[in-house]
């Protein structure tokens, strides 16, 4: 077993109890320690099922037939309990409202470590650390109900981080958020990746942020892996993404447009700076030439 591998799925199929089709069909993927991996797909592509496999909610709580092997840090998910796995796998769900259930933010973040029997002094330190990390320091006594959507999701992240997980799994965390909440959320995820080297598995429908932060991207369609690889490669064709029900990143749309207009297949960028340079170097001279 390679200790550098955080999560490994080999030929995994899963069918919900009483369902006809496979929610996941022949899925194989690997997440290395410290990697940021995004799973992109439309509704019903199998993203949530995949996320819940990682901490054992599938198949332990959500029943069905599981084939293949899912390993989290070398441990077989099918053999461990959710309670045991949850100390290694931090989980953040879509709905900000229904995953926060305590009266105060502090209790919310302390809930996990309390269940794990962590001594009170250490919990206190972890709560402060986690709230600081997600930019919610000082909100300890606020009711989660009174927070904005973006703040709620960041508290949910803090509540997962306080258990000191080795991998953070987020199932469409920005789903119910307004644009500001979305920006706040991704700022936190970026910091987790860059400053803390956290291993992250993110399910998304919008490729915008995934294109910036991911080391590896998995495209899913109807429970199957449609493509996977580095972001540049996988996200190069915006039309294909749209056909899969994924919102393509704006920069790759611009690149694709330039490729076809200038008839130069070598144009490729994902960042605004690269787009700017390409436009200055190739579009502007071409335009001047046409004007003359």
């Amino acid at each position, binding site marked *: 077993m390679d200790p550098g591998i955080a999560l490994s799925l080999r030929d995994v199929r899963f069918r919900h109890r009483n369902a006809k089709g496979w929610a996941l069909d022949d899925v194989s993927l690997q997440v290395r320690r410290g990697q940021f991996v995004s799973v992109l797909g439309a509704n019903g592509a199998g993203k949530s099922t995949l996320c*819940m496999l990682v*901490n054992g*909610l599938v198949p332990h*709580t959500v029943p069905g037939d599981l084939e293949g092997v899912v390993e989290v840090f070398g441990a077989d998910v099918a053999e461990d309990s*959710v*309670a*045991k796995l*949850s*100390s290694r*796998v*931090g*989980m953040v*769900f*879509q*709905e900000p*409202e*229904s*995953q*926060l*259930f*305590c*009266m*105060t933010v*502090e*209790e919310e973040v*302390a*809930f*996990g*470590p*309390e*269940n*794990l*029997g*962590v*001594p*009170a002094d250490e*919990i*206190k330190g972890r*709560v402060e650390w986690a709230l600081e990390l997600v930019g919610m320091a000082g909100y300890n006594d606020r*009711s*989660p*109900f009174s927070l904005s959507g973006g703040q709620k999701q960041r508290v949910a992240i803090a*509540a*997962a981080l306080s*258990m000191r997980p080795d991998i953070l799994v987020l199932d469409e965390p920005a789903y119910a958020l307004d644009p500001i909440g979305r920006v706040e959320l991704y700022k936190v995820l970026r910091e987790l990746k860059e400053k803390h080297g956290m291993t992250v598995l993110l399910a998304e429908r919008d490729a915008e942020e995934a294109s910036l932060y991911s080391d590896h991207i998995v495209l899913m369609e109807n429970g199957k892996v449609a493509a996977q690889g580095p972001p540049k490669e996988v996200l190069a064709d915006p039309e294909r993404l749209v056909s899969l029900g994924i919102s393509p990143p704006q920069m790759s749309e611009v690149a694709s447009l330039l490729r076809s207009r200038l008839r130069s297949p070598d144009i490729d960028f994902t960042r605004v700076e690269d787009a700017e340079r390409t436009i200055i170097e190739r579009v502007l001279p071409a335009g001047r030439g046409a004007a003359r």
Partner: protein
Amino acid sequence: MTGFVDLYTEGDTVLHRMDPRVKIFAVLMLTLLILMISSLVHLLILLAFIALLVALGRAPFSKVSLALRFVLRVMIMIVILWPIFDPSGTPVLATLGPVRITEPGVMRGITNAVRICCLATVWYVLMFTTPQRDLVRALVKLGVRFDFGLTLSIALRFLPTFSATVESIKDAQRARGMEFDKGSPLRRSRNYISVLIPTIISALRTADTLSLALQSRAYGARRHRTYLRELKMRASDGVALAVVVAAFVMPAVAKFFLKVPV
């Protein structure tokens, strides 16, 4: 359904600082005392004392009046209805067909109305000065299982959420032309089915995610969980406890052993 109001207001009074276990015990003792006392004068004295507690807890006027409006309605009902159903004793003040109003009946009505007022206000003092989380924490510390405490706190926590859900569903139905307050009483109650069903479905969905979220946060991972904040009894809590016990025991002894009417 109007928005849910949490009666608790943040503060730093003697009552806020008191250990919630002591507060719960004190309220139970006072409840027994209120049920034991039968003299109107003594009940009024007790009511004055409870009013003092409300003042001591510095509850904001808006919440006190909100709470009292409800109690006042119940009191008026009792004062009116009690003499009608309790016609024993003399002198008879009025006769109206089969209904007989007597002076002791009226007095008993007033006494019981004051008693209800005492009971309600005593519990209000607890709600005014104790955050819900402390109430739940105190119950768990007093031996209630953590599961039950958690269930209770989740129920309390989601009250405002569901209240908001109901409001937004009502707005959505209104936007589609539903008029909730029009038509016969039957029609009106039938209108609410269009709110009830989406509310139940939304509640079930929330419960589903909630159970996944609870498990993902290691709920039930160990038999013994730790607590970030422990409740601590202080000297002042001991004093409060002694005062409450004395306040209950002295009249009890007077009533049951010395046969003094209280």
